[in-house]
C-alpha cells in the first residue's frame, strides 16, 4: 500500500493518503476541507473558461451584399460565437478583416462590408504607400472580387 502511494505521489496528497500520514482526525478533516475548497474553486474556474471559449466553425459567403461587386467564387470564412457575451465574430483571416454582430447573419453582413471597405481603400491607395502585408491583401482581393459596374 505504502509503495503504491509513493509511486503515485504528487505535490498535492491524495485524500486517502491523509489517513495514512498519522494525522489526527481534526487535521485530516481540515486538510480534506481545504482540498474540497481548492477543487471547488478550480471547477468554477474551469466552468468559466469553458463558457467563455467560443464555438468555432467555417461557413461560406457567396456575395458581398453589393450588386456592384461579385465574388469570383464563394469564400470560406471563420465564425466564432461567444455565447456568454451574445457576440459573433465572422472573419476572413487571410486579409485580416472581421465583422461583429449579435447574430451570425449580422456578423457576416458586417464582414462583407469590411471586405468591400478594405478592397476600395487599397485600390485607391498608391502602391508606394502600402507595406508588404496590405499589398498581399490587395493581391488576394483582386483575385476574388470582380467589379460588375
Amino acid at each position, binding site marked *: 500500500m505504502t509503495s503504491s502511494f509513493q509511486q503515485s505521489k504528487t505535490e498535492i496528497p491524495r485524500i486517502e493518503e491523509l489517513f495514512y500520514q498519522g494525522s489526527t482526525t481534526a487535521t485530516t478533516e481540515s486538510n480534506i476541507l481545504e482540498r474540497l475548497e481548492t477543487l471547488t474553486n478550480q471547477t468554477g474556474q474551469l466552468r468559466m473558461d469553458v463558457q*467563455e471559449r467560443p464555438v468555432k466553425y467555417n461557413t461560406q459567403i457567396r456575395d458581398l451584399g453589393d450588386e456592384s461587386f461579385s465574388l469570383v467564387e464563394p469564400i470560406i470564412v471563420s465564425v466564432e460565437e*461567444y455565447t456568454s457575451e451574445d457576440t459573433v465574430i465572422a472573419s476572413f483571416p487571410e486579409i485580416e478583416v472581421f465583422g*461583429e454582430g449579435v447574430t451570425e447573419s449580422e456578423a457576416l453582413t458586417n464582414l462583407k*462590408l469590411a471586405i*468591400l471597405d478594405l478592397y476600395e481603400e487599397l485600390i485607391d491607395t498608391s502602391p508606394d504607400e502600402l*507595406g508588404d502585408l496590405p499589398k498581399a491583401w490587395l493581391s488576394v482581393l483582386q483575385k476574388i472580387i470582380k467589379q460588375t459596374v
Partner: protein
Amino acid sequence: MKWRNISASDFGKVIKKLSLQSSQSKRRAPHPVYWYCLDGKKVLRLTLPNLHGGSKSVSTGFIKQIQNSLRLDTHQFEDLTECPLTAEEYEAIIRDKLVI
C-alpha cells in the same frame, strides 16, 4: 478574464500612443479603421470599436481580433493598453516581426 476590463475609451489612448492614422476612405462597415505606419508606409490595419462606446467593455472576440492585428501576445497587449509598452518598444516589436 482580463479582456472584459478593456473599454472602448482605452483604445483612444492606444491611438494616441501609436500615432495611428484614421482611414480617410468612405466606409460601409460600422467600426472605424486605423493604420499603423512605418517609414511612410501603411503596414498594419486596425479595426477598433467606436470610441463613443466610452467605458463600455469591448467583447472578447473583438479584442482578440485587435490583438492579432497588432501582432502582440497577450502580455504585450495588456502592457500596451495599460501603458507600460511605449510607442518605441511597439515599433521595435513590429520591425522584428514584419518585413517592412
